[in-house]
């Protein structure tokens, strides 16, 4: 079943991300490290949506959906994040691992989403931007 969380565009609301994820995977056997990684990735996506997408405009909301599909041991967690912003091209972002960027205090969000999930996709849609994160609950055997 798909669960939905709608947040006002205020970074105070990032605290609701982890409990939402807990609810989605409740009763399932998710690898602890994978869970930790997807929590971080999801906070990156929601933070980007609030700060860069909706420009912290509290009249605008961020919609997060989550579900688990498939059967044990191949269950996959799918989470989407939608904002009302103008979107962006993730392929034009500076490489945060380049020596000249290592000391920058920002610019790692998309990199972390891609690194911490099996799949991180970014689409510019009619109403804004949609980020989709997918990750297996367990390592592939």
């Amino acid at each position, binding site marked *: 079943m798909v669960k939905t969380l709608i947040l006002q565009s205020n*970074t*105070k*609301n*990032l*605290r609701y*991300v*982890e409990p939402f994820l807990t609810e989605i995977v409740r009763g399932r056997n998710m690898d602890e*490290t994978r869970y*930790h*990684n997807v*929590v*971080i990735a999801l*906070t*990156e996506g929601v*933070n980007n949506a609030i*700060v860069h997408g909706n420009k912290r405009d509290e009249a605008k909301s961020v919609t997060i959906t989550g579900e688990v599909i498939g059967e044990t041991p191949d269950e996959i967690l799918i989470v989407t994040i939608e904002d009302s912003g103008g979107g962006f091209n993730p392929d034009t972002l500076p490489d*945060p*691992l380049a020596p000249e960027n*290592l*000391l*920058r*205090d*920002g610019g*790692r*969000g998309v*990199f*972390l989403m891609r*690194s*911490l999930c099996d799949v991180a996709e970014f689409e510019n849609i009619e109403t804004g931007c949609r980020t989709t994160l997918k990750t297996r609950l367990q390592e592939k055997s």
Partner: protein
Amino acid sequence: MSEQISVEQQGSVTVIRLSGQFIGGDETDALREEFKRLALVEKPLVAVDLHEVSYLNSTALGVLISAHASLSKQKHGRVGLCKISKNIENIFVITKLTLVFEMFPTIEEAITQFS
């Protein structure tokens, strides 16, 4: 100050203990303010205890990097990260920030190195 941040002085070293999630909310803003306060000191020596941190994302990484720049580079002090859990350490490894920060297994080791 956020209840997720406690600060104590151990000799010449300021120990900042963090707990819970540092993911870009008020707690991360409070940490940024704490480092700004410390940047007023000459040669600040700071040990950050991350043992009780459950999640740390790129916004919090940015605050730590800014602290490194302002306290270590500009004020000739030192910022050490201590007692980092395996999951949190992974964030520093994949972002190559292990090349930037001094890391210590214990607070005591950071204090010894800094003193």
